[in-house]
């Protein structure tokens, strides 16, 4: 107990460690690079590996890899390192848990570069997000983002007072990138023309409740889900509204759409509504057993999300949404006249009505399970000390 108090006092007088900032910088680099890169592919088309967005993405791996590598080496070989007391050990090396995760993510990202380059030369330049080298890259970026979150919670759990509050704000900030990463990986299933299919809601149930429950459990903040989702939505909207301000034109062909500016990401999913509902419900069911809470929160999430996203999808398909705010008129240059982006029709992801309702049922179960998993993950994060 004395050790813990000492650590807390020490943390209370400390400023945020340099390696947290450097990892956050790396994460921001990949966030900007990632959004820019997708927009680049949709507006200009890749013509070289060395585009600015690609460099920004790879910079994430390099910056986090180097800074965490240095941190691990210095912690290992400097016997009086202040980090040593709250480090973990692996293969004879010592360092904060988050540093190992970030370093692992950095190696993943660096590995993905030659893999991706070969993939392009073997199978052609891809215009899809989900390919094995891209998933490896995403895994690396997720590792770095998760490592950064772990670094912050480790510091936060050892801190008290104002410093802890500052770290909690930083945690919300770092967590939105994990949120964005997960949603980004799944975006091929969340285009607007899928929004009247059960698969869309199943995917949403897989990715959102786990994150909402985790941040709520990790921070114990009454509005944790709302704050994180609001920050994520604001960040996403910033990309949606800022990227089109930059002129662009395709460098690859054939070109099916006239492009004059960078194509923005789709308007964000209306997750803010289920996040608010999530926070409101969880404060009323605190005494329930874990699975009952998970069931209630999962149901609340899914029901409220369907209630807002389903009609909103109709709006997104309408001409009224084709403006700078909702950006549904911005179509990638490679989308032909028969592409769903152009036709503005919903695509069926289930062959029958029965299949639709079965998958919706699965989505409900998934939402509950992922909520519970998220709560356990959050509980674990609350206990992280190293």
């Amino acid at each position: 107990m004395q050790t813990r108090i000492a650590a807390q006092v020490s943390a209370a007088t400390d400023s945020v460690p340099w390696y947290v900032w450097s990892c956050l910088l790396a994460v921001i680099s990949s966030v900007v690079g990632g959004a820019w890169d997708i927009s680049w592919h949709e507006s200009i088309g890749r013509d070289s590996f060395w585009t600015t967005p690609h460099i920004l993405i790879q910079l994430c791996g390099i910056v986090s890899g180097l800074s965490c590598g240095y941190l691990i080496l210095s912690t290992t070989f400097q016997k009086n390192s202040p980090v040593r007391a709250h480090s973990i050990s692996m293969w004879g090396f010592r360092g904060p848990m988050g540093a190992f995760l970030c370093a692992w993510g950095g190696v993943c990202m660096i590995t993905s570069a030659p893999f991706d380059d070969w993939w392009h030369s073997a199978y052609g330049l891809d215009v899809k997000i989900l390919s094995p080298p891209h998933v490896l890259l995403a895994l690396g970026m997720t590792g770095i983002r998760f490592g950064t979150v772990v670094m912050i919670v480790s510091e936060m759990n050892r801190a008290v007072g104002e410093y802890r509050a500052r770290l909690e704000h930083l945690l919300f900030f770092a967590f939105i990138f994990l949120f964005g990463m997960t949603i980004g990986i799944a975006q091929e299933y969340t285009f607007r023309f899928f929004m009247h299919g059960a698969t869309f809601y199943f995917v949403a149930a897989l990715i959102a409740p786990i994150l909402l429950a985790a941040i709520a459990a990790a921070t114990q903040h009454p509005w944790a889900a709302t704050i994180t989702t609001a920050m994520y939505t604001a960040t996403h909207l910033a990309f949606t509204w800022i990227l089109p301000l930059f002129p662009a034109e395709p460098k690859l062909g054939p070109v099916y759409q006239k492009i004059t500016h960078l194509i923005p990401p789709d308007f964000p999913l209306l997750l803010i509504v289920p996040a608010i509902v999530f926070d409101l419900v969880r404060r009323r069911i605190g005494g329930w057993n874990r699975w009952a809470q998970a069931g209630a929160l999962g149901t609340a999430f899914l029901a409220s999300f369907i209630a807002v996203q389903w009609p909103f999808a109709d709006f997104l398909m309408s001409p009224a949404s084709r403006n700078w705010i909702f950006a549904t008129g911005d179509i990638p240059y490679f989308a032909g006249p028969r592409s769903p982006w152009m036709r503005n029709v919903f695509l069926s992801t289930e062959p029958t009505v029965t299949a639709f309702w079965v998958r919706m049922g699965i989505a409900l179960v998934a939402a509950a399970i992922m909520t519970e998993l998220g709560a356990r993950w959050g509980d674990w994060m609350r206990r992280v000390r190293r």
Partner: protein
Amino acid sequence: MPREKAYHRGRRENRDHREDWERARSFVIPSPCFMRSRIQRFGAAILFLFLALPLSAHVGSPDVFYEGNAGPYRLFVTVRVPQVIPGVAEIQIRSESKDVRAIRVVPMRLAGPGSNLPPTPDLAAQSKDDPQFFIAGLWLMESGALQVRMLVDGPQGQGEVSVPVPTSAQRTLPMPKSLTVLLLALMLLLAVGAVFIVGAIVREGNLDSGEVPSDARNLRARRAMLVTAVLVAVLLFLGKAWWGVNAADFQRRVDFFKPPAAALKLVDGRRLEIRVERPDKRAELTDRRSPAYLRLSEVIPDHGHLMHLFLIRLPELNAMWHLHPDSTAGEAFALDLPDLPAGRYQVFADVVDPRGYPWTLVGTIELLQIVAGKPLAGDDSTWSGAPLAAAPAADSTNSPLPDGGHIVWQRPPGDLKAGVPLEFTFAVQDKDGRPAQDMEPYMGMAGHAEFVRSDMSVFAHVHPAGSVSMAALELAQGGMADAAASAQGPMSMAMSMPMTEVGPVSPEVRFPYGFPQPGEYRLFVQIKRAGRIETGVFDAHVSQ
């Protein structure tokens, strides 16, 4: 790599030239043109016996060769199409005139959507040693019927020409051994690293500063590592399976564009019916959604005929027929065969789909002797003579014609090399050895040439304009004409392409082409003189 550097430098220099391009597009003067070509393939056939033999894509000759005018500038263009799509095509351009200042290239669809919105053009790099030679690397993003437009700038103003480029993924490139080793090592590091990181986290992650892990924690960490190892193994297995699915999907795209096998059927002993062989009904349903799906009822005329059929007698290539079947009901073509000796025949059937993509149906067929067959008429022609010698083929440059005249191949000195673009020049002489004065257009052109490798792995039907399909070329020029029709302002730019040969046809016929691979080749050169179609035959050994 200098070429790569030139390519990227060209891209950088090119970013500010969009306005030039838009201006240039609006000044195009439409001009009819014609030419035709073929990129060809292999296949299969039926008689009373039936042999399906799909071989390499585009009958082994995927690169595009073109010669024509971009306004006042005459260009010889070679497009080395990429092995995978999307991929980078290498565009080599030789200008006949020395004063061309710059050439920009841009890829588009040949017709329909995607054919009227050019991306930013790429500036071709001009060789310092040879200012008449330009090279560019150009991303081609789709398989199918594309075109590469070239915008030429020089002291005589601007010129524009459009070269049809049929693209398709041809094969999957293997992973280099060094990269395989590197990626395997990194995969091992990441997999083992993940297991040990999880172990360390479970063992020490929740301990207070300075606290030592208990035995129970160590045990829990080992269990967590075991579970993680299993999970990582499962993930790797699933990842490999997913990779396999991606590779299979890519292979499917490669297969879409492989030469379709010809289903050949002999009716009543002399009428040959030609269909596209469809071995798998399910594949047919899937393929129907593909841009590569070929329907014989929809093909478009290519220099006057819907199909050009070549029968080449095997194995010695000592007889050849160039025929023109008619479209019939049931997605088929058919014709009554002329007199033919019994034997085995290689069949190449050229068609062009409505998108402008040229296809060659390929097959072989065993025929009994046909007597009292349908006499040759119209543009149909035949040749028979000496067999192609076994390797190495005896090079020949002089081919006698039935009237005592000759076709002389003005072959460049030295060995013929694979992969080198050449201009094949043939002089047609009368029986007195003078340039023939009775040359006429044959199907609208000065001549037709078929390049056939001894093993049938290469077949290319080439014209004075090169290996491009004339039907595709007409579609491309149609697109340019549309652009010009919608243009505003003065027309300061000329686009001229040789269309149908008008007036006297020169006794010297030239064909731009390059042998795709080494081996023994037979060249059939077909011209028309005083109403007679005549064929000269030349053999060539091509080295690496």
